[in-house]
């Protein structure tokens, strides 16, 4: 069997990607004109909130693709080899979206608008004992430094791991070289995981998202954010795999791999619910006012519609629709569910961000959809470019045979 290793980006694909990016740019401009350029601090916060929500969500989602590679590498998994290059290609979006997100985050942090991040208002912090207490962590310099370090570290480590993967494309390895290569991969994946756990699984969601509600805190928050974006990342990988299969690429990928991706999405949706509920239940049970402020606008206030819709999409839909074996092996069902999951967790991020700057009314989602479409177009464009630059199959990897004969 000859494998089609070289992906040629279809013209229509790029046309769609660029159209989406144009829609995104128009949405951002529109949002700026109607909100961002106004004198009202609330309206400005609406503009920045939308940028924050979308850039952070899509950055964490594309970074989850690299996490997927590293986690499976550490577990010495072989089954993902057949489509490993797809997740590698998605992870090339990290530097691009990372720069956008860094610009947005630093603008919010150092800007004059304190509606999103109250703790950036130094005058206010002086009179606020809680924020004053948190000053050692929640201050502009640490925020900026840690944000830049994080994005650079993800980008550099991702680049290193992709380079390792590409380095054996033209030279088959002997058994001894293969062992060394696997070990090398393991070490770099471990370094990535350590950085990942110090950032995505702990400090980064505190700084970027939880500090919107700076008086409130939850120890579940980072895990919950991670679970959200990991489901999104897996869904994105699956969508690209299905897209490439439909275009007669990735001959080695079959229903067995799709089944395992489906299991991952199913399992992490349940994991997400577990964290979501654990965070909710403890606060509901203790019923302490400083803790319930977070859930008041979300679960019972004007955001309750989005809150419960998001819960249904992210928990009930995968629970009921992805439970059956046949559903996970069906390309149409999986495509539908992946789109739904990406949308559902995007909605989750929406309700994480907006009740902070806009507690009295729910912003019109239409603008945010536009901005999200822009990021989707960007991911399509960058990933397509990366896919066309590297062979689609890591054919010399020592574990490739495991993936070919994979059976669930």
């Amino acid at each position, binding site marked *: 069997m000859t494998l089609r290793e070289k992906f040629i980006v279809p013209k229509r694909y790029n046309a769609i990607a660029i159209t989406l990016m144009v829609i995104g740019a128009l949405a951002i401009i529109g949002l700026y004109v109607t909100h961002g350029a106004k004198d009202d601090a609330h309206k400005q916060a609406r503009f920045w909130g939308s940028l924050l929500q979308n850039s952070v969500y899509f950055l964490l989602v594309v970074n989850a693709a690299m996490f997927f590679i590293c986690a499976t590498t550490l577990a010495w998994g072989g089954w993902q080899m057949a489509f490993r290059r797809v997740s590698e290609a998605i992870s090339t979006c990290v530097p691009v979206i990372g720069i956008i997100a860094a610009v947005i985050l630093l603008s919010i942090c150092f800007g004059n608008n304190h509606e999103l991040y109250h703790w950036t208002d130094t005058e206010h912090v002086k009179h606020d004992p809680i924020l004053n207490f948190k000053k050692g962590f929640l201050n502009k310099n640490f925020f900026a430094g840690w944000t830049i370090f994080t994005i650079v570290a993800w980008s550099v480590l991702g680049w290193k791991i992709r380079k390792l993967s590409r380095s054996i494309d033209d030279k088959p390895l002997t058994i001894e070289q293969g062992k060394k290569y696997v070990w090398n991969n393991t070490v770099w994946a471990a370094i990535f995981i350590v950085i990942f756990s110090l950032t995505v699984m702990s400090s980064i969601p505190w700084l970027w998202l939880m500090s919107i509600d700076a008086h409130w805190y939850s120890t579940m928050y980072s895990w919950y954010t991670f679970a959200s974006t990991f489901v999104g990342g897996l869904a994105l990988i699956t969508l690209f795999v299905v897209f490439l299969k439909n275009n007669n690429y990735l001959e080695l990928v079959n229903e067995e791999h799709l089944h395992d991706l489906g299991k991952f999405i199913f399992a992490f949706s349940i994991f997400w619910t577990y964290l979501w509920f654990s965070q909710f*239940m403890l606060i509901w*049970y203790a*019923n302490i006012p400083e803790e319930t402020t977070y859930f008041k606008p979300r679960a019972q206030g004007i955001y309750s519609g989005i809150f419960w819709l998001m819960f249904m999409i992210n928990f009930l839909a995968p629970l009921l629709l992805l439970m059956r*074996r046949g559903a996970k092996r069906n390309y149409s069902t999986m495509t539908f569910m992946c789109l739904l999951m990406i949308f559902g967790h995007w909605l989750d991020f929406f309700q994480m961000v907006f009740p902070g700057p806009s507690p009295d009314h729910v912003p019109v989602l239409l603008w945010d959809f536009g901005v999200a479409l822009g990021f989707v177009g960007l991911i399509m464009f960058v990933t397509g470019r990366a896919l066309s630059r590297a062979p689609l199959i890591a054919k010399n990897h020592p574990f490739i045979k495991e993936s070919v004969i994979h059976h669930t």
Partner: protein
Amino acid sequence: MAVKKFVTGNFYDEAVLFPAVKKVRRAGYKIHDVFTPFPIHGLDKAMGLRDTSLHTAGFIYGITGTATAVGFITWALTVDWQINFGGKPFFALPAWIPITFELTVLFAAVGMVLTFCYLCQLAPFVRKDHFNLRSTDDTFVMALECTDKTNDAEAMGFLQSIGASEVQVQYKETGWWLGRYDKETKRFGLKEEAVH
């Protein structure tokens, strides 16, 4: 249960077993089962077995557990014995979710284990017979079921030709064996006539 006649053969290698299963099915023999010391991926597909219904059973058990937990706690705390816990409503659903989850898992797990044992005809004190004891150790044992039209010698020759060793004809009682053996029963492949 009826005693049936089987032709059995031992295989030592997956690489021989898989093509052999294919050839046997193509030749039209009826595979009773293939006994292996460990699960072999893809063998069920190669033998043309249908998917197990154990999942469906598990789902039903799980739903039963959910309904039991929610039903009982609701009845106990809202109807039978109302207690005010920290000013919470009597119908305090979030507080019941952990118990509901646990009962779901418990019912599903226990139910599925019991169902599995039933399907595999395993229970305490049930004496299981083997076509070949080595199927619990290091070989794969294929058993072909003989019908009226099967020619033993031909089937044995065929099994040998596709890589089986220790090919033999055996008479076995199939089905649910609880309490079916008495002291005179001959076991482990000893000869006996087929009863139809």
